[in-house]
Each structure stands twice: as C-alpha cells, then as structure tokens.
C-alpha cells in the first residue's frame, strides 16, 4: 500500500513535470537573451536611412522629412530636409545631444530640463534619443510572460532602470518571439504612470535582419497627439566617415 502510494505520487510528479516542460518552449529563453537577440536585429554597425515624421495633434497633421546616419547605438546624426526645417541637424554622440540651426551662430548642446523638450513638436523628446548604451547595461530585464500583440506571440519583458541615467525608470517591451523585433513598448514614470507608448506597425527585412520601418509614438501626457515615423529607405553596412558625427562637421 505504501509502495503503491509512493508510485502514484511519482507518476503524478512525472506527469506534472512533462506538462510543465511542454509549456516551456517560450520560457526556455531568458529575458537577457531575448534583449541580446533583439539588439542584434535592430542595432547595426552603420545605417543610413531617409524617412518622414508625421505629427498629428489637435491642430492637425505636420510632415517633416529627414535623412539620418547612425553608427552602433551611440552615434546618430539626423538632418531635416523639409522646407520649414531644412538644414537643421541633431547630433547624438554617447549621451550628448547637439542641435545645429543654419541661422544660429553657435551649436546648442542640450542639457538638463531642455532634454525633455519635444523634437520638432513630435511625441518624441530629445531625452528619448539618449542612452546609447545597450539595454542590458542600463536596465534589469525580467521576463513577465507571453502575450499576443497584433496576432503575434510576444515575450513581455519588464525593464527596470539600474540607475538614474535613463529617461524612463520602467519600461515594458513586447518582443516578437519569432522575429525578435519590438512590437510594442510602454514607458512609465517613477510613479508607475504610463508616459509614452510606441507601437511598431511595419517591418522590413534586409541582409537577414528585420527592421521596424513604421512605428507610432504617443505621448500620453499630450491630448490627441501621436507621431508616426516612416523609414522610406534604409541601407546597412554603409561607409560613414567617423567625422560625420563630430561637432565640426555639424556646421558644414
């Protein structure tokens, strides 16, 4: 009787274990690994792109076009090409943001509260462009589970800031479990208030990698406001001279 009981328990245990293992495929990967795979896909040595930013707010729609150059995660140069902003540039090197305007005699280095200002009235702030380090350098990642976003199975990952040098102390990422691309991001304040939401609407594959090419950011602190980013052309692995990301070159 005692032996039979032990066997029954063992059987139940084995069945439970098999059952748990059968639901594990999505969890067989850690949050850190997901982030690494995501960054492998979305971050490149060099990228050159052209696109537009469509800002919708209570006053209507505004379209701004731009060209951009990026080297890794830490260097980005954006040059605006639309009529109203033609010639204006934003340079990001590490955690510094510099603004160049054709009619200004000096390059403006943004710091402090000014970093929270919106980029050309969009839902993105200059601060959103900072934080060049990898996500795992700045955040503790925690896999919360899986959830379907736009019909695709996604890992839901919570990111908690390691220090104060990041724009958002907490973020939740939904990462596509097949393509390892971001599908949705929620950015929270210290008081757990949802500040911004980013939704990736379209992807493009190039050289075996998958890029988000159309995404929407909504600043939840603004009423009736959203900004759509559309990347119309992308080249990766292009030759970009490192001087392109210098302040001297900015004024050319």
């Amino acid at each position: 009787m005692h032996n039979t009981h032990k066997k029954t328990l063992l059987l139940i245990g084995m069945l439970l274990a098999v059952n748990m293992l059968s639901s594990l495929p999505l969890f067989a990967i850690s949050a850190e690994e997901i982030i690494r795979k995501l960054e492998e896909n979305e971050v490149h040595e060099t990228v050159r792109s052209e696109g537009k930013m469509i800002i919708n707010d209570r006053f209507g729609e505004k379209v701004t076009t731009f060209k951009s150059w990026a080297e890794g995660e830490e260097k980005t140069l954006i040059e605006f090409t639309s009529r109203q902003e033609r010639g204006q540039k934003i340079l990001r090197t590490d955690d510094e943001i510099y603004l160049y305007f054709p009619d200004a005699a000096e390059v403006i280095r943004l710091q402090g509260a000014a970093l929270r200002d919106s980029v050309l009235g969009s839902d993105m702030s200059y601060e959103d462009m900072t934080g060049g380090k990898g996500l795992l350098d700045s955040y503790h990642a925690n896999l919360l589970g899986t959830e379907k976003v736009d019909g695709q199975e996604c890992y839901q990952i919570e990111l908690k800031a390691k220090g104060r040098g990041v724009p958002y102390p907490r973020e939740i990422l939904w990462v596509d479990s097949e393509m390892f691309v971001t599908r949705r991001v929620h950015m929270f304040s210290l008081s757990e208030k949802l500040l911004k939401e980013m939704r990736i609407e379209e992807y493009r594959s190039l050289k075996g990698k998958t890029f988000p090419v159309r995404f929407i950011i909504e600043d939840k602190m603004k009423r009736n406001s959203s900004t759509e980013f559309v990347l119309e052309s992308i080249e990766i692995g292009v030759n970009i001279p490192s001087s392109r990301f210098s302040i001297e070159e900015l004024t050319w």
Partner: protein
Amino acid sequence: MKLRKIAWRNIRRNTRRSILSMSAVAIAAMTFVFLFSMIEGMKQDVAYNLQTFVTGEVRIRHSEFEKYKHLNPLHLGVNNYSELTERLESMEEVRSISPRIKFPTAIYKEGSTYRAQGQGVDFDREAEYQGLEEYVVKGRMPRNGQNEVLVASGLAKEMNLDIGDNFTLLTQTRGRGMNAITFEITGLSHYEFDGLNNSFFQAPLDRVQYFLRMDNSVSEILIKLEENHSAEELSAGLDRSLTDWGRPQLEARMWKDISQTYSFVVMADAIYFIIALMFFLLGSTVIINTMMMTIFERRKEIGTINAMGMTGPEIVRLFFLEAFYIAVIGSFVGVLAGIGITYPTTIYGLGFGEAMQGVDFEVSTVLKPVLNLKSTLFVFLYSTFIASVASFIPSRTSAKVEPVEALRAI
C-alpha cells in the same frame, strides 16, 4: 442765526477738546485724499501700461488664440497683416498701430539656458506707438531687417551680457517645429513697468517672422485711438468690419475686456469707498464722544435755556451745528493736509520696486498719485456728511434733558 453764534462760541469754549475732535476727522480725510489719489494714479498707470505694452486700446487677434495661449499657437495669427494695417491706418479713429509677435523662448549662452519672452516689433512704428526710444537706457534701438535685439536690463544683467554681445535663442515655430537664430544686442531697455525689465527682449518684426516661419503674419495688432474716440465703439465696429473684410476668424476686443488688472483696480477703488466709510465713522466716534461729554457737562445750561423757552428741536439743532462745524473744519483741514502730503508724490512718485517684483500686475514700480478735484471734493463732502450724521445721535439726547431735573442740582 443766534444758534450758529452760540454753536460757534461753544466750540471755542473748550478749544483743546474741539481740536481733538476735528483732528480725528482731519486724519481720516487726509488719509483718504492720499489713498484716493493713489488709486487714481494706479488706474491711470495700469491703463497706460496695458494700452501701451500689453493690449492696446483695441487688440485684434485670432479668436481661438486665447484658448490655446498656453501652447504658443503662432499658427493662429493675423495673416496678411500688412493689408489689414493699411485698412486700419485709413480709419480716422486710429492714431497708431503696433503689429507684434509674442513668443516664449529659451536663450542659450555659453552652455547656460535662460527662459525669456520675446517680442517681434516694427521698431519704426514702436517709436510712435510706445515712444520706445525713451526706454532705451544704453546703446541704440535695433534696426528692422537686422539680427539685432533690444534686451531688458534685468535679462542682460542675469545673462551677464552687454551691448555688442550675441546670444542664440531657440523657440517653437509657427509650424510647431523648432528654430534657432543668433541676435546681437544693440540696446538695453528699462521700463517703469517691471514686468518688462526681466526675461524680455524685442527684435525686429521681419526677422522674427523669418525665423518663426510666420510669412506675412503677426500674432496680434494693437491699436491706439485718437482723442475722444471710444475703444468700446471701435472694437464693436471693427469686429463687424473684420467679417466684412473676409476675416471672420479675427476678433477685436477693447482693453478693459482683455485684462483683469484694471478691473481689480476699479474694484479696489470701490472697496476704498467702504473702507473710507469705516474710517470716517471711526473718526466720527471722537465727535460723538465729545458731544456726549459736552451734553452731560451742560445739562444745567440745557435745562436753563429750555426753561427760558428754547424748544427741544432748537436744542438738537444747536448741538448738531456744533458737531457739524467741527466736522466741516476737520474735513477741510484734513483735505488740505492730504493735498499737502500728496502733491509732492504726484511729482516725484512713490517707489514700490521691491514690493512689485514678481507681481504679475501691469503696475509700474514707481507710482505717481493723481490728485483730482472730483475725489478730493468727494472726500470733503463724504467725511463732513458721515461725521454730521454720526453727531446727530448725541445731539438728539440733548433734547431729552428735563429742565426740572437739570436745574435740581443748582
């Protein structure tokens, strides 16, 4: 006639006490001549500041601008403003106009950021509209068409800048984008209206239009009127004309309807009338007290004159006349003293520099009280009236003195 003589003689019987009674009314009257002059000065000062620097006598703006003011809605401007100014200038009621663009901005100077309020103005027009040259305390006015700027002395001090220095400002454009431009300081300004001495600068309208991408638009047009024309009538007429001119999105409003500051001063004026009433009543208590004492002291005398045939109403009139004379003399002396202490301040003004710092009212730091006949005469009549009415109470008690009772003590 007899009663007046007796009343006057009675006042002189105890000069010290009469002077004390008069002085209470006099101090109240003096205080209110000064305070009403201050309020009148403040009213004129606020009106001038509003009409010259803030709202004009009539202001034309996009009707939706006020609603979105906090978002700096430059796109809700007065488009093709030069066509409109031509129309306005042809109107006989209009003396001068000032097209302006107001915009909040961040100034960058050697790595530091300063928040400021910019104003694009046509410097040729402003010389006439606000006599701008008077306020240039150092350097010269900027020239239209040049990247030159007139900076408030307080802002220049805060940024440690002087004539010939440059600074770069960053601001939101009409299309809700951003733009920056560098200006050279050609002049420093200082206004008696302290709100314009800090965080404020003026740049040529055409250059501001260029960098804010405003094309031929301004955010508002301020209008000053010729003498004897009503801002209320012009604003109502203009409102209709703007629709006829195909600009129904614009509205014309008169200055009193725009700013609350003037309403507050007018309200203060009304409150002062009530405070004055309290003061005069307080002053009158001294007269009441004196009269009561006099009546008690003169009970025998009252009994005697009553026994001699003077009627009750005549006795009341006698004491009322005494109180009235004290009130008239006290008020007169008080008004004269009030004029005496107020007059020098109407010339030299009173400085409220420290007190007015950070106050968001369109009031100058140096206030010049304005003495006017109406308010001065009012103080005299008002104080006389209140004191006389108050003295009627003790006067009435004099009639209640019974002759037999009053004479019993003899």
